[in-house]
């Protein structure tokens, strides 16, 4: 019983429920995407049992969609694994942010958190907790979001596997998944830097679409990070520093020294007349 106690406490935590509410809208889109992925697995020629196994064990929508045609074509294992690794590279970047919140937990829990994290969980978590420091309600919040995401993905995915021949792919139901990600993306745009970075990422992803292994996603991330940093630097440059009068005898306090070093302030020594 003692092993179950922390789980029960997590399930009853208000943050757990809050995360489920935050994720509810997006869950519909994730579900549509899961359904399509389930159908695609079986339509590619995979047996129902193997498709169920893949859905439950791999649990990675974009990587699954990328490797399903490779597996169907009998590609070598290393090609399949390399493709999945490249598609998953964005999660490596996200994991550096997760670390600021969960580094204090034991390794087994950190691995579990990693396995159950996804794009949409990452975004809603970061909006709830923009400050990168650990707080006790973060773990229940994470599991609330992760449970919603898991159910929203796995249930439709299994339905898709079982009803593969009934669900019409030509209707374009997977577009609901794109719309869910669009909504999440729009929620991240609030200033010139984020809008420009998004435009650059979208352009780069399309321009580099012909690259193998879905590397266009990585090209887009690199381009957007560069543009974001550039805009931050430019905006800093355009801002005029304040002139601050400083008594000629006093030393600059450390806080002012930092502001001077950052270029926000120019100290001006006051002349002393005896």
């Amino acid at each position, binding site marked *: 019983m003692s092993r179950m106690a922390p789980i029960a406490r997590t399930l009853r935590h208000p943050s757990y429920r809050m995360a489920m509410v935050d994720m*509810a*809208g*997006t869950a*519909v*889109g994730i579900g549509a995407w899961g359904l399509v992925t389930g159908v695609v697995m079986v339509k590619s020629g995979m*047996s129902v049992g193997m498709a169920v196994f893949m859905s439950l064990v*791999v*649990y*990675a929508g*974009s*990587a*699954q969609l990328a*490797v399903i045609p490779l*597996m169907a074509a009998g590609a070598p*294992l290393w090609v399949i694994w390399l493709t*999945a*690794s490249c598609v*998953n590279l*964005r*999660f*490596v*970047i*996200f*994991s*550096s942010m997760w670390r600021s919140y969960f*580094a204090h937990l034991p*390794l087994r829990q*950190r*691995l579990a958190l*990693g*396995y159950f994290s996804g*794009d949409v969980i990452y*975004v809603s978590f*970061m909006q709830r907790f923009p400050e990168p420091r650990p707080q006790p309600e973060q773990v229940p919040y994470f599991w609330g979001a992760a449970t919603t995401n898991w159910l929203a993905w796995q249930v439709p995915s299994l339905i898709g596997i079982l009803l593969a021949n009934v669900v019409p792919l030509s209707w*374009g139901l997977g*577009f*609901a998944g*794109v*719309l*869910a990600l*669009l*909504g999440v*993306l729009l*929620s*991240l745009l609030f200033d010139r830097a*984020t809008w420009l*970075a998004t435009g650059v*990422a*979208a352009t780069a*992803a*399309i321009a580099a*679409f*012909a690259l193998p292994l879905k590397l*266009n996603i990585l090209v*887009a991330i690199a381009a*957007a*990070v*560069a543009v*974001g*940093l550039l805009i931050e630097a430019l905006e800093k440059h355009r801002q005029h520093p304040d002139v601050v009068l400083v008594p000629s005898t006093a030393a600059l306090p450390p806080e002012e020294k930092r502001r001077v070093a950052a270029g926000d302030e120019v100290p001006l020594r006051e002349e002393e007349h005896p």
Partner: protein
Amino acid sequence: MSIDWDTVLAAIAILGLAVITVISRAFFMIPERELPLPDWLKRGLKYAPLAALSAVIAPEILMAQGQLIGTVMDARLPAVLCASAYYFWKRGILGTIVVGMAVYLPLHIALGW
């Protein structure tokens, strides 16, 4: 009882994919000590999630068969415009999906856009 080699190979591939899921998503959480990242990179990484999202969806909206679409008679374009407009009006993701699909499905299924 004979063992189907293709099935074994597929199972191995799938187990490997599961390991990749864990390692990639937990990557920087795995070491006990923090790997030092330069400060500019940490600031820049806050643009990574929105870049990854736009990189995933932009081709889904603007491309067909690996080519940029050359027509405005594509159901995805009005759907995305209406969905975005709804998002900025009400800020709800569920409504964004519903509005987008309400525009997309009739155009796509009935008119074949």
